Each structure stands twice: as C-alpha cells, then as structure tokens.
C-alpha cells in the first residue's frame, strides 16, 4: 500500500484542530468542522474495512519511515484486526462525543479542538509500533483529557483533572525508563539501536530484568485500564468530566491500557507475563468484585457507571490472564462492546442530567412517566451493560468465561458471581432512575431529533454486536493467535 492511509486517518483530526482554532469566532462552524472531521475519519475506517480483507494475516496496513535517526526512532504504524476494531470504535465514539456536546457554550472552539486532538492521540496509540512513537501518543492523551475535565467539568473539576494527570503520568514515566533501558540492552547485544517493537522482542533478557521491565510497563497500563488498586482516579475523573470526556474516557482511553498490555507488555516480556498471570487474575477478580460492590453503594449515577467500568475491565483483564485463544478473543470483544455500552450509558446519563439537573440517584425517579423514549434506551443499554444475552456485552463475557473455564475453572467460577453483581447494581440504577415515584414533574420534552440521531446508532450497534459478533471475531482471531504465540503478525 503506497498511499499513507493510516497517516491520513491519524492526522486528519489534527487538521480539524487547526481549522477549529482558525474559526474560533464561530461556534457553529467549529461544531460542523469537528463533526465533519470525525465523520471523515469514520468513513476512512469503513473504507479500510471494505478495501482490505480483515481476515488476512500480517499487517493489514503498514507504514514505516525514518524519523529521529540519532536515537533510532522510526515512524512506524501498523494495523491488524485488533487495531482496526479499536480505531473504528474510536472513530464512532468520537462522532457520538461531538454530537452529544453540540450545545457546549463555554469556548466551543477549544472544546472541539481538544476532542479532535484526543482522537488523534488515541488512534496513534492503537497504531504505533515504535516504542517512542507509542509513548508520544500515549502522553498526548493527557493534555486534552486534562483540559476537558479541568475546564468543562463540574465543581471539583480541577481536583479530578490533576488526579487523573498525576496517576497516569506516574505510571508512564516508569514505562519510559524501562523503554530506554530495554533499548540500550538491545543495542548492546546486537549493535542495532532501535525502538522498533519487532526488534526489541528479540532482546535476550534475564528473568529479573524481564520482571522489572514488565512491572514498569504494567504500571503505565494498569493505571489506564484501570486495574485494582490503581483505579482511584477514575470515578473522580468520570464524575467531573463533561459528557464527551466521559464517553471518550470510558470508551477509548481505558482501552488503550488493555491494548498496551496485549501489544507491548506481554509480547515484549513473555516469561514475566506468564509468571505474573496469577497476580493479574487476582487483581482482576478483586477489581471485578470491588468495582461491582462499590458501584452498588454509589448515589451519584456517573460514579456508579464509572465503578461499573472498573468491574468490566476487571473481566477483560481476567480473560487476558487466562491466556488462551477463546478468552483473549472474548477480552478484545468485550473491550469493543464495553466501549459502545459505557459510551451509550454516559450519553444517557448526560441526557438525564440535562433534563433534571441532577446526578443523584435519590433525587431521581419516575423518568419513564415523562420520558418513555429516553427511558427505553436507558433500559436497553443497562441490560447490555449487565450482560443480557443478545446484547453487546454478553458475547464478550461468555467467551471470557468459557476460555477461562477451560484453563482456570476456579477463576471462572468466581467470575460468574461477578456477572450476577453487575445485574444487581445496574438494576438498582435503572430502578432508581426510571421507576419509582416521579420526583419532580418533568415539563421537558422527550427525545429531540439530534438525540435520536445519537441514540439510534448506539442502540443498533448494541444489538448488532450482541446478536452477530462473528465479523469482529473473524478479524480478531488471527491477530490474537499471533499475539498469544508471541510471534509477529
């Protein structure tokens, strides 16, 4: 492929950022620009799906140019089935994020510019194959997210933004040190100084070195996932963030952590990964239960959904820890599914807040009486989130359970209970918001046209992913096999 399709996909939003800043006097044009750019990215993604065969082995698309020769850093992008799905997810959620923030009144130009920039950073993480390039995109996520929370958030926004920044940066700086050390070791062994992922996989490391480096990489990734006990930044960030921030955070940013594990941490340090699987599984299970139980106790509906993310991501990590084909496929699938469902849930919560001006479950209730359409969608997404068969999350969860059961029946048996807990806290959420006595008479209109436009694609996707995940699995299975073998795609 000669045409740099991946670079175009990656850098298109940056063009949108520049245009947004240029037309900052006119909110209307900024909105349209952001929407158009993200639609274009989505369209590009769809074009890629239809022009290449997602089942084919090897990189579907690959770009490699020299960049900083002094340090052996190259501009290497590659897309396989997993990246493709995650990039599509990102593109889709970005469109949703723009649409749901349509009426942003504070400094709309900067807002949409940051959203676009975040898109580039996240897609960059999913595509980069050079460690430094990856790290650059990884850190590039921080600034837009920090600003989105800190400027457009709620009352305690600065606290949440700073907390987010510190937690994530602390992890990544450790990763940076490990990267440089790995690079130096590899250079000493082979004489070739390079940050290319494929080359660094071949480095001879003692087990101690591997464990140290693995821990440093995992520090960065575990914070982003967030794996228990590194999750404490997440509820605050979600609670305070504006809707688009929450959608991006839950839908995409958390996935970068899991992606980093499967693309970088595990393949680079396979022996260390193998040794740490039990620990990972234990943390995942704790996260699964802890997230669910804390979610049940929340009165703030955004925090509730945030903790549900901790729980779901615990499930994803459990699948990875099971270390077999089925479980990994389930994990990646659940990542995509959770991206859609949690994004959808945050959209719904934002719509509820717009109507009731409250996030408190105690002051909500009886939404169905005045807002039947909104409530129906809410119900649908909640059911998807709790893993009802036929809706999005179910396929991923069942694959994880099957896969885990085949290698670690005990873990799987414990995890099943976690699924039950999901039902408990989600039903409490639904019960508290939709049913019960109507707390205040709503005179607000039910769904507006624009809101239908947001919710219908989400609902269609939730049902589609639940009923027919096969296309996704087709595109996943090849790369997952290769990653599990530690081989190169």
């Amino acid at each position, binding site marked *: 492929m000669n045409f740099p399709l991946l670079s175009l996909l990656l850098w298109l939003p940056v063009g949108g950022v520049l245009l947004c800043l240029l037309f900052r006097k006119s909110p209307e044009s900024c909105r349209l620009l952001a929407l158009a750019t993200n639609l274009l990215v989505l369209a590009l993604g769809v074009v890629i799906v239809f022009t290449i065969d997602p089942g084919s082995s090897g990189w579907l698309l690959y770009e490699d140019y020299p960049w900083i*020769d*002094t*340090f052996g850093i190259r501009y290497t992008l590659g897309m396989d089935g997993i990246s493709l799905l995650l990039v599509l997810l990102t593109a889709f959620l970005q469109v949703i994020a723009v649409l749901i923030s349509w009426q942003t009144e504070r400094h709309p130009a900067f807002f949409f510019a940051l959203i676009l920039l975040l898109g580039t950073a996240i897609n960059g993480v999913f595509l980069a194959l050079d460690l430094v390039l990856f790290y650059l995109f990884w850190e590039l996520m921080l600034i837009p997210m920090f600003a989105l929370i800190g400027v457009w958030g709620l009352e305690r926004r600065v606290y949440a933004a700073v907390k987010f920044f510190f937690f994530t940066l602390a992890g990544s*700086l450790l990763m*940076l*040190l490990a990267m*440089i050390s790995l690079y*130096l070791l590899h250079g000493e062994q082979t004489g070739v100084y390079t940050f290319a992922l494929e080359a660094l996989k071949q480095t001879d490391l003692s087990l101690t070195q591997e464990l140290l480096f693995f821990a440093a990489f995992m520090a960065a990734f575990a914070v982003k996932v967030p794996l228990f006990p590194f999750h404490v930044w997440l509820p605050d960030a979600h609670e305070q963030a504006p809707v688009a921030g929450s959608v991006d955070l839950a839908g995409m940013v958390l996935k970068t952590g899991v992606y980093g594990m499967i693309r970088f941490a595990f393949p680079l340090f396979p022996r260390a990964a193998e040794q740490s699987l039990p620990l990972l599984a234990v943390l995942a299970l704790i996260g699964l239960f802890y997230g669910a139980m804390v979610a049940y106790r929340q009165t703030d509906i955004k925090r509730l959904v945030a903790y549900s993310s901790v729980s779901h991501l615990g499930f994803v990590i459990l699948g990875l820890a099971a270390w077999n084909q089925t479980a990994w496929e389930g994990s990646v699938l659940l990542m995509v599914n959770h991206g859609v469902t949690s994004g959808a849930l945050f959209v719904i919560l934002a719509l509820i807040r717009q109507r009731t001006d409250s996030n408190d479950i105690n002051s909500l209730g009886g939404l169905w009486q005045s807002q039947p359409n909104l409530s129906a969608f809410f119900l649908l997404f909640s059911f998807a989130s709790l893993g009802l068969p036929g809706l999005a999350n179910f396929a991923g969860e069942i694959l994880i359970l099957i896969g885990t059961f085949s290698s670690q029946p005990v873990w799987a048996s414990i995890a099943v209970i976690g699924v039950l807990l999901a039902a408990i806290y989600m039903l409490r959420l639904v019960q508290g918001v939709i049913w019960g006595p109507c707390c205040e008479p709503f005179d607000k209109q039910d769904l507006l046209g624009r809101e239908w436009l947001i919710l219908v694609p989400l609902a269609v996707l939730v049902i589609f992913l639940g009923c027919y995940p096969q296309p996704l699995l087709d595109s996943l299975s090849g790369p997952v096999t290769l990653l599990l073998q530690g081989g190169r795609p």
Partner: protein
Amino acid sequence: MSLLELQALLPQLILVLGGTLVLVAGAWVRNCRLWLLTGMGLALIAALVAGTVEPPVTEIAGMFSTSFYARFCTVAWALLIAATLLLSSRYADLYRYGGGEYASLLLFAAAGMGLLSAATSFLGLFLALEAFTLVLYILIAFNRTDNRGAEAGLKYLVFGAVATAFIAFAIALIYSATGTLHIAEALSGLQHHAGLRPLGLAGWALLLVAIGFKISLVPFHFWTPDVYQGAPAPISGVMATAAKGAVLTALLPLLAGLGPSVATINQILWVLSIVTMLVGTFSALVQTNLKRMLAYSSVTHMGYLLIALLVGGAAGGQALLFYLVVYSFATFGAFGVVTSWALEDDEVQDYDDLQGLGYLHPRRSSALALFLLSLAGIPPLAGFFGKFGIFYAALQHGYLELAIIGVSASLISLYYYLRPVIVLFMQERNARQLRSGAGSEYLLLSACCAAILFLGVYPGPLLELIARLLP
C-alpha cells in the same frame, strides 16, 4: 594580536563597538526604540558573521577558541540577545528606559557570553564571565523606581562578588600548580604531575563553588528567586537562559579535558545534581509567583543538566546542549509572556492576578501553558526529547539512581507547572484586562512556540547539528 585574529574576533567586535556606539549616540538621540532596533540589528549581524564567516585562525591571543562549537555559542547568545531587544521594545517604553543604555548593555552581555563559551584560557574565562556579570548587575536594577529591582541588583552584586573572589582564587591556585593559564595545558599539567593534584583539586573545588553561584546550583541558589522576581522580566529571561547557558557551555570542555581526576569531581557533581533537583523541585511547589516559580524551575533544570555534565563524553555533551536549547526556548518564552503582560507600575506575576486570564488573553496564555508543559517534559513538546536525551545518557552510563530521581522530580514538577495553567484556564475570572500584546512580542512568542513544537516533533536536525559541534 594580529590582524587575522582581530578578523576572527569580528562578531564580538561588532557587538562591543556597536554597543559603545549605541551608548554614546544614545546620549544625544533619546529614542529608546530606535536604539533597541539598532541593537537588534547589530546582534543579528554579529550572529550572521559568526555563523557564516570562516575564521582564519583557530585561537585568538591564546585566550579564545574559534572552533565550530564556540561560533555556535556566539550565534546562539547573539540571537538570544537580539530576541531580548525585540521583546523589550514596549516594555522599555513602559518603564521609560531613555536612550541607548539598555540596548548597549545587552550587546556587551552578548559579547561577554560569546567569549565565555569560547574561552581557552582561565584569564579569558575570568574576563568574559565578569564582563557579562557586571552588565547584569546594572540591568537587574534597571527599573529605577522599583525597590525590588534595587534589592535584587544588590543581592546579585554581593553574591556575584563572592563568586568572583572564589573564581579568582581558583585560577590562582591552578596557575600556581601548573604555571600556565591556558586551560588545555593546565589540565594536562595537572594530569601528569601527581604531586600537583591537591592544589589542582582545591582550585577545582573553588571553581565549582563559583560556577555553582552563577548557574544557581543548590546550595548556592538562594539569590535566584529574589533576583528573578526583582529583575525586569526580559532580563530574568536572559539570566535564566543565556547567562547560565554560557557558563555551562564553558564548563563542558573544561570537564572533558580533566582526564582521570574527573572521577573526584564527578562525585561532587553527583551530589550537587541530586540536591539541586530535589531542592529546586520542592521549593518550586510552594511558590505562588510566576517568576519565583520559574526561578526554582531553572534551579531544577540545572540539576538535570548536571546529570548530562556528569555523564560527559559525546553522549552527555549532546544531551546537555540539546536540553539547553530546548529549555532556553521555553524559559525565555515564559519570561516573554510575563514581559508582555507587564503593567506600567508592576509586572503581573502573582497567581492571584492571573486567575481566569486565559480567556481574556487566550493567545499569550496558551503560549505560556505550552512553555510550561514543555518545561515539564510532556510530549509532543520539545522538553520531552530534552529529558529523554538526559535520561538516555544517564542510563547508558549506569546512572540509574540519577535517572530515577530525575523522573520523580519531573513528575512532582508537573504540579507546579500545571498550577499556573489551572489558574489561567480553570478558575473563575478575577484578573484585570491587560494590554493587548505588541506585534514584536507576538512574533517572538510564536517563534518560541513554533520552535518548541517543531523540536518536539522533529528534533533530528538539531541533534545532528549538535553532534557535529562536539568532536
């Protein structure tokens, strides 16, 4: 001194003679802006000459080198002074800087800094260092009505005089041990005669103390925040960047020529580096004044630069120079924003006065945020590759502990770099409307922003240039 040597000295001659001319003529024509522009022109010409005219000799009067490295430094400092003059145009109007004194002093400073980076003799080193330090004593207290400026000037004078005494004594010791003032000869003399080592090391220790004062290493840093706060913002910018850079670039070849006894010096540098990073970082945390925070931040950055100095060799030298360039762009830009925000009676520098300013003056506030984030080392800004280079060099030479402390310090430093950003953009508006920026200020700030973004995305060319500078 032969004619050829004079020709090699041409850039400095342009600066000094031009500066004198501006000073004298400025007594009759009291048009500050004219002289600022003239000074800028002279500095640019000097930079151009230094950059393009191949010097006919390799050493001037046995005191100053004309190597590619020395010329690069001359160009850098001349350009920085030109930028300062450009930046100062409205500031000088605001504070009624009168005739050509300000411009001519800065030109003298440029000449001194250029010579310092080029010094090959201890005598040249001393003269050049004093030349620009003397100029700075005056410039710091240039705002005549500002008490804090006078205090800062005096403070710097006292500390500076002590440092001068130290450096003079150091040179005397080294001279008495080796019988020569030429740096390379003295250093090799110290290497070859074991009996001279104690004297030489004593000289080195004194030299390090003096240099510690000049580049504000902990525990010689106490003057820094007060002086930076009191000095006019453009001058603080020069002090934080060029003045320190000139000393460091002079120190780099000095340490390289030290041979085996560098191990002893390195132990001291190791301690100084750690203490400087930690004290600088933690002191910066509690600051509520932008200029004071930048002062402590510059202390911290000197700690990082010491790591590079400690690593030594080509790797350390390259990391040091790259970091210095990147740091200078960001720090100078940050002081540039403060300059641009100056009011007639005072500079706006307290965080309380900055609340919500980001929405009144979005362009300059965003630029400041960019500079601060670059100083914090957040990619994709240039500061990231600066720190990357330093940690890389440290790990390569087995200084794992320094790398870890450096990384921790930069994590903590994020807090004080983010604070102004939070104050500017995330708090309720409390700030007064300030003046809209002058064209020259915007020009300079956008140049700094562009440099930071460009070097953050594509540092290759600068890295290659620096690799050519160091043999």
